[in-house]
């Protein structure tokens, strides 16, 4: 897999689907990346203790941290193993990346999901709210890119 072909996204997509399925079975939750990461950041919660312990206690934090560490490790290994996986072409100045990060963090936690939780899992099980969210973030992202690439670049 030194050269990137359209088999790359197909194989990668299948792996992402399998990984999400495995994490769903193990955790009993929709393992969307923004939800997993966001809940890991919650140190205090107004939820009742019974709910709070399962999600935000040590047990809830441990599996979420392990899953995300696996994600980072799996990516690092792939970057090292395959040239096609290591391709990285920066598109935006770092200051734009910081603003984008703020918006992505805020928006995904407000909207209850990102490309994985809504886009892959929610759409996969036919959840109407996830389909709506996916259409909205795809459309706004496309409009943003259209404007940025033509008006700013």
């Amino acid at each position, binding site marked *: 897999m030194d050269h990137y072909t359209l088999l790359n*996204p197909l194989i*990668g*997509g*299948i792996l*992402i*689907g*399998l*990984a*999400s*399925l495995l994490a769903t079975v193990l955790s009993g939750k929709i*393992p969307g990346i*923004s939800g997993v990461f966001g809940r890991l950041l*919650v140190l205090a919660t*107004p939820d009742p203790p019974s709910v709070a312990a399962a999600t935000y206690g040590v047990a809830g934090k441990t599996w979420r941290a*392990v*899953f995300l560490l696996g*994600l*980072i*490790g*799996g*990516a690092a*290994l*792939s*970057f090292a193993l395959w040239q096609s996986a290591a391709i*990285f*072409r*920066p*598109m*935006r100045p770092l200051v734009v990346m910081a*603003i*984008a*990060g703020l*918006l*992505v*963090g*805020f*928006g*995904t*936690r*407000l*909207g*209850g999901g990102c*490309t*994985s939780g809504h886009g892959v*899992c929610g*759409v996969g099980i*036919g*959840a109407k*709210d996830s389909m*709506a969210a*996916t259409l*909205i*973030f*795809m*459309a706004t*992202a*496309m409009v*943003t890119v259209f404007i*940025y*690439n033509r008006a700013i670049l």
Partner: protein
Amino acid sequence: MKAGKLFLLLVAGGLFGCGLAISGMTDPARVIGFLDLLGAWDPALLFVMAGAVAVYGLGMLVLRRFASRNLKLPTASSSPIDRRLVIGAAIFGLGWGLGGFCPGPALANLGGLRAEALLFVPAMAIGMLLAQRFFGADS
């Protein structure tokens, strides 16, 4: 959670990160290439979504049909398409188009120690904390 289960979650995370990297979704040029419909359009993200949605959707159908009743699986929630969801998804889309990173690829690029990710991920954490502080962690 037992150690065996945690190990399998590490494997699941590993497969996820591997899938993101192999598919090219950790390359912002490829993601922005997909989002730029009127530019030199790159279909890769569509292939990723198609593969992932098909595997996850079919897998969940099969599990619901054949797995034991003790296995608790999340269902397609009847959560409403409300203002919170619409505005949140729109803000996410704005940030995604600006940076070319959604949360998974941003975290995955930490594995390559890329400056973009080292800056984007802490900013994303701040954005999440703000949303959760003012609007609650669960919609």
